[in-house]
């Protein structure tokens, strides 16, 4: 029962929003459902913490890993809803792009992502990962401009093709499990597969083939280079709250799917193969994205490439494995989500005030927009991994894992890439903050709701950078215990 609320509340929210006609009521309904959803997730996380694995019927299951990812989903989606209530004031009433459609699709999108986390069955997980694409494609194309339509089309096509490969990988896993003696009816259940994994060693070649397809398929959604082509376009063209949802929740969602498959593969045939593959994908993504960040001109494209870079770091953490690597990777997904949300919100604010996201046209934010400028500085320092922010800790943990397992090449690559990123962001942000702007900003003062949202982000980043709270630590331990039985 505890699992049904977080799953179906967003769906109910979507229905309610579609029924409402008045824009003001729509916003109020959205905020109410968002609050309820946050509470439902809180209760679910607490129940998982006290009872261990929760199973509901054959298709719903939640364990420590689920609850860890649900926390970041709940937090970010609540922030996004609050931010949107102030951001989307002047939305034109168009077909599929009214306020009603915005919130309706956001709730559908949230529903599909919660369903991915709660799926007990790998096949069902695939269905909902594909559904996340379908639910968010219209949101990416929300503004209906040439760029937005093109980005939405590209997102839909590239991700559907990518996910099709993940389907084949899932089928191959199923085949390996059935050949290894698991009954066909439960051969896609993650719990069953995890328990039966040591007995699947006979299907070594098949499992390797399956994992390659899964890594390419879900990797498309994570944004690994070279399957990342949809990501910068979608992030740059979507409305800023949606960019935050894509970057901070959707990418984690795909990474979560990869983690589940990696756990089974590692347990069945040893971690060598899958972890090497993740290290390669992670390393390439990190290197390519960090270099591309130097030449970006659009603020949101810059942030999108930064997401690719950070997903690369997370993949490296998982690929290094062991307690340290995994701890760093999980912590990094959380920290990255918060920092990236803060930055995309700031980008939305910049767009509202300057009417553009071209970084060379934006000057003098420090003077003319002191609050947004401050948020940009905090976000920029956090995302480049400076102390005292959370990303410093998680990157340090991953680097420690790399050095302690003698992966010197990866460690050096990571240090070099982080330095390049620091230089690139310093260059871009410094240009935007300093100097005097020719245009007078439309709205120098931030709205109260934005101050709250950005304050929460900054507070989380600082807290996680200084000391991990005991409750969060318990959830983190629970997640680690699932992956390393």
């Amino acid at each position, binding site marked *: 029962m505890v699992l049904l609320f977080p799953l179906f509340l967003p769906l109910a929210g979507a229905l309610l929003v579609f029924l409402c006609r008045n824009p003001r009521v729509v916003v109020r309904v959205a905020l109410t459902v968002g609050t309820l959803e946050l509470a439902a997730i809180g209760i679910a996380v607490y129940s998982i913490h006290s009872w261990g694995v929760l199973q509901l019927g054959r298709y719903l299951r939640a364990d420590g890993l689920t609850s860890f990812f649900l926390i970041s989903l709940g937090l970010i989606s609540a922030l996004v809803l609050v931010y949107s209530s102030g951001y989307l004031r002047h939305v034109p009433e168009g077909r599929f792009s009214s306020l009603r459609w915005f919130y309706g699709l956001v709730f559908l999108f949230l529903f599909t992502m919660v369903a991915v986390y709660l799926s007990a069955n790998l096949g069902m997980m695939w*269905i909902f990962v594909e559904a996340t694409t379908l639910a968010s494609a219209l949101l990416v194309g929300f503004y209906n401009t040439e*760029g937005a339509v093109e980005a939405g089309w590209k997102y839909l096509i590239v991700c559907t093709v990518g996910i099709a490969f993940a389907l084949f990988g899932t089928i191959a896993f199923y085949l390996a499990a059935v050949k290894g003696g698991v009954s066909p009816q439960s051969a896609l259940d993650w719990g069953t597969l995890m328990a039966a994994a040591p007995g699947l060693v006979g299907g070594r070649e098949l499992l390797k083939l399956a994992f390659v397809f899964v890594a390419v398929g879900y990797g498309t959604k994570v944004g690994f280079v070279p399957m990342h082509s949809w990501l910068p376009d979608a992030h740059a063209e979507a409305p800023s709250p949606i960019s935050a949802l894509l970057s901070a929740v959707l990418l984690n969602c795909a990474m979560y799917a990869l983690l589940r498959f990696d756990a089974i593969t590692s347990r069945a045939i040893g971690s060598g193969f899958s972890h090497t593959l993740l290290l390669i994908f992670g390393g390439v993504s990190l290197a390519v994205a960090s270099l591309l960040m130097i030449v970006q001109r659009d603020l949101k494209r810059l942030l999108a490439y930064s997401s690719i870079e950070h997903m690369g770091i997370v993949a490296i953490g998982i690929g290094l494995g062991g307690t340290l690597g995994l701890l760093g990777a999980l912590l990094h997904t959380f920290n990255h989500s918060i920092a990236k949300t803060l930055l995309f919100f700031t980008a939305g604010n910049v767009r509202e005030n300057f009417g553009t996201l071209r970084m060379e046209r934006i000057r003098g934010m420090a003077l003319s927009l002191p609050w947004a400028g401050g948020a940009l500085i905090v976000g920029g320092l956090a995302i480049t991994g400076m102390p005292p922010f959370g990303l410093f800790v998680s990157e340090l943990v991953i680097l420690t894992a790399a050095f302690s397992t003698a992966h010197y090449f990866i460690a050096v690559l990571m240090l070099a890439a982080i330095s390049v990123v620091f230089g690139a962001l310093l260059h871009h942000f410094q240009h935007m903050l300093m100097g005097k702007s020719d245009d007078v900003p439309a709205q120098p003062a931030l709205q109260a709701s934005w101050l709250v949202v950005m304050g929460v982000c900054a507070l989380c980043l600082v807290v996680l950078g200084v000391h991990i709270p005991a409750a969060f630590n318990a959830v983190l331990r629970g997640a680690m215990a699932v992956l390393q039985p």
Partner: protein
Amino acid sequence: MGLFETAAAKALASSGVFLFMTVLLIAAAKRISTCIALFSVQSLIITAQIIAVSRMHHSTEGFVIAGLVLSVKVIAIPYVLYRIVEELKAPRDVSSSTSSSQSVFIAAGLILLSFFAVRPYVGVLGGDQAMLAAAVALVLTGGFLMVSRKKALMQVVGLLVLDNGIFLAALTTTFGMPLVIEIGIVFDLLMGVFLMGLFVFRIRDTFDHLDVSKLRRLRG
């Protein structure tokens, strides 16, 4: 083995050939509507295979899946695509970057390639070599259609052919997945096609053409 089972096994063994034919014909086709019809035929062959396989394994779930595939992939999706072609009132050629004969040549090459590609995996995956090769050939040609045809609708057709390939691979290697999962997969596909249709109209309305090769604003 009764007469029906024997016939089913024979049909299954030879249907790979028909699939290769649809692949070559799609590569040769010059009009979008021909490609849609060929996709429908292709899905019909796969439906026949599902029926044959479920008859051999005496499974009732298989018949449900066959019915689902028949209604969605043979009837609903081609119908929706036809309607879109009609509604768009745009030129109906596929506007390929390779000529018709070149495309056939490339498709034939891809078929050969897929026979070589599946050879090491026949032992591991199980299943008939020709069928596995047909599955890989469908995936490859689907990808080829997506990169070489410029019309947005043809990208959808390419994607559907690719998806047929993966479906066929699933059918030949594992005999079907649990029913609920299959239903979900087909439902996703249907929704996906609706959404892509919606985007096709949006591309036409915002750009006044359907040539995706001209969508280049967002490179780099």
